[in-house]
């Protein structure tokens, strides 16, 4: 009796495993079309280890679900009161110690298995030694944008993080130190890694080693104030050569031609410079994003709008139209000043 039971279990278990793996794989195959932020389409080691663990957990919980669901359904159907009921009470059963013991011990064993698998992944992801050739980035969460500093490379940028591809033979992972300038935020690129919070006065860190080039999306995952929803994340994973070229470009100070000096004067004589930096000029504010190479970015307003001249102009005119509650004030400039300022910003390549 017992051996037959266990054989059946193995069959059922393996079938369930196959089913869950297939459906998870189907999910993963559809990944980019289904969603650019699908947690089941990992592209970096932390996300992959989590994906592996999640498959195991899904199989175990799926099996428990099927067994208990079937038992519940069976008993609800089987033991319903029939139309031709004799009106007598069913046998009164008060309990059984053997049965209780069985359904205590089995869950305990399952819990132990799940716990060990989980503990292994925690250890592997949280106790990783830093490699010498790793890229170091400091990510600072602000209401409602991201500041990125590459201390070893002398680069400061905002909202669009650039990292090199990490080759399996020659890994160049990126270690990100997570800080916050104001409230709590959370850094979450589902295809690269799980989320880690950015908490003021409580530095955190995480790492990624993306295997394929591309743009990976995500967004702030800890409620941080009015515009939490439009605090979007973009990670540009580039081949090493492209990444190095990007770094070289970012290290240059701003090059400004005389044609836009009117716009530059507007920028430097209004409140702009209180919050924004343009390297090589008097503008050295740190409250808002660094604008030295603004035009090298695809988006503005932390990913909320495409970086086009019209959007830029609209953003300066009335940030609330794009991102209500954003901390950038409407600058109250005349049309001429707006045009000049936009023209100046467009030269910040």
């Amino acid at each position, binding site marked *: 009796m017992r051996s037959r039971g266990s054989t059946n279990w193995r069959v059922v278990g393996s079938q369930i495993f196959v089913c869950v793996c297939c459906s998870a794989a189907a999910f993963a195959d559809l990944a980019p079309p289904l969603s650019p932020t699908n947690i089941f389409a990992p592209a970096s080691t932390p996300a992959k280890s989590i994906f592996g663990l999640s498959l195991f957990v899904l199989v175990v919980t799926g099996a428990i679900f099927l067994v208990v669901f079937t038992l519940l359904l069976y008993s609800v159907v089987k*033991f319903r009161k029939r139309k031709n009921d004799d009106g007598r009470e069913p046998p009164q059963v*008060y*309990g059984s110690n053997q049965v209780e013991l069985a359904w205590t011990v089995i869950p305990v064993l399952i819990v132990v298995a799940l716990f060990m698998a*989980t503990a292994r992944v925690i250890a592997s992801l949280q106790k990783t030694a830093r490699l010498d050739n790793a890229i170091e980035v400091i990510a600072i969460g602000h209401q409602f944008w991201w500041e990125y500093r590459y201390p070893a490379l002398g680069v400061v940028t905002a909202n669009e993080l650039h990292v090199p591809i990490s080759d399996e033979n020659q890994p160049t992972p990126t270690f990100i130190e997570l800080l916050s300038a104001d409230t709590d935020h959370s850094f979450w690129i589902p295809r690269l890694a799980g989320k880690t*919070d950015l908490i*003021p006065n409580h530095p955190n860190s995480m790492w990624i080693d993306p295997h394929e080039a591309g743009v990976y999306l995500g967004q702030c995952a800890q409620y941080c104030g009015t515009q939490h929803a439009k605090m979007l994340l973009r990670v540009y994973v580039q081949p090493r050569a492209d990444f190095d070229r990007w770094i070289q470009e970012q290290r240059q100070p701003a090059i400004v031609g005389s044609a836009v000096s009117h716009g530059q004067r507007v920028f430097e004589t209004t409140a702009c410079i209180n919050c924004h930096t343009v390297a090589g000029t008097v503008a050295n504010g740190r409250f808002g994003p660094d604008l030295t190479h603004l035009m090298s970015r695809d988006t503005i307003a932390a990913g909320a709008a495409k970086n086009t001249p019209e959007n830029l102009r609209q953003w300066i005119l009335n940030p609330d139209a794009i991102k209500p509650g954003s901390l950038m004030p409407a600058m109250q400039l005349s049309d001429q000043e707006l045009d000049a300022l936009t023209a100046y910003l467009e030269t910040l390549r």
Partner: protein
Amino acid sequence: MSTEPIAWPSASAESRTFVDTLHEWVTTVDHKRLGILYIVYALVFLVIGGIEAIVIRIQLIRPHNDFVSPQVFNRMFTMHGTTMIFFVVMPILFGFANYLIPLMIGARDMAFPRLNAFSFWMTAFGGLLLYFSLVGANGLYGAGNAPDVGWFAYAPLTSQTFSPGHSTDFWTLSLLVSGFGSIGTAINIVATVLSMRCPGMTLAKMPLFAWLNLVMAGLVILAVSPLTAAQIMLLVDRYLGGHFFDTQAGGSAVIWMHFFWIFGHPEVYVLVLPAFAFASEIIPVFSRKPIFGYPVMVGATVAIGFISMSVWAHHMFTVGMGSAANTFFVLSTMAIAVPTGIKIFNWLATIWGGKIEFKTPMLFCIAFLFQFLVAGLTGVMLGCAPFDWQLGSSYFVVAHFHYVIVGGILFTLFGAFYYWFPKMSGKMYSETLGKLHFWLFLIGFHLTFDFMHIPGLLGMPRRIYTYEPGRGWDTWNLIVTIGVFFQAAGILVFLGNLVWSYYRGKAAGSDPWDAWTLEWCTNSPPPAYNFSVIPTVKSRRPLWDLKHPDDPDWKYE
């Protein structure tokens, strides 16, 4: 000298004015009236919180919707969460506990009737204070009215810097005030259960309902106290220059999280244990069998009570606690799945071999069993810390805890409403409307909360007032929103049923379900003194013994 009988002002029912009735209800110390006050009060807030949920879902029906502004949306989810936890589910559960515990243990009232009234009014004023923020919170800052810091109000978003004006103060004070009410009620429940039981009712012969509420009350005392302390610290920070959570001055945002969640997770069990209590009374009666494994059920309850105090930081896996702490909280979180699983198996075994009658209360409890199974399993997934790094703070978590609170707690609560409505009102509810309510709510629930898991898996964080198109979230959000309207329709049918049945329902009689616990041996509704003679019991099912003198329970227990 002739003696005249003393005429009480409200001797005859006909001569009572509205003011007399109101006066009676406001000044009452009767546990049944206070129970009903709690329940009616909570139903009002259920409608308010439900409307907030509808606003949230309409806003999210499609990407870049502009039904409400981000400011309004953030207030909506803050108020929805705070209202539903503190001013709907807790009071409604306290209401049932208040009404039923003395009746079930054969007592004439709670241990401290005046404390009982005090606690109710504290809770009631807490809720009013929260909503008074809509009028009073603007202050001189013009900084917005209702609180918008989220229901767990993480520091430092609650500091003066980021929350000017008084909205956060209203949030803090309303929870502080209602927290005192909760602690008062919890002390009352513990005292009542421990010292007011009728002759013969040892702890081992007490209905499971009383056991579960006893553990719940113990948890309230342990869990609400740290929340109250944290609220006071927050007030000190905001007005007396304290630095507990002021990160600019060396305070710690993480300390707030610990304080909040050492309240917040036991709170989940504070809410779910009474739901278990309803299921443990309703399922046996409609299966026509005693609860399976009573001692094990009690043991599992006490185990849940203890373990639930050690799992709080699984809400903080993404906070960067270090691998040792993460591993510990994985273990404790998974450990709690064992006693919870035991409970599900015991309910299953109670049904097994019975004769199930599919009356509305039982339908809700059966749906609860299925849904709580799912909620438990998604809880295990979230308990695996690395999986939680992906799932935490996403819509998957939102779906998970709504599966617990709606699929688990609210379903059993509806079951409890239908089960004890005849006792409380003396009238039978409409079975047709009850079943309509059940099916509408079941469809709505599954449309909303089954599909809500998926955008979470696809990377959608919670608490965003809008989202980008092209993330694969659109369809799921549309389905989720459609489900909400089915739920709303179900609630309307439910409220209609209560009102209609109260006025037009058939007389229920004292024991419409052929049940076994003491509340069914007194009139419906019970008289103010509950029992004309305090009963004496010999087993866990005194009415079974009475109805089956040839085969009484006490021979076997």
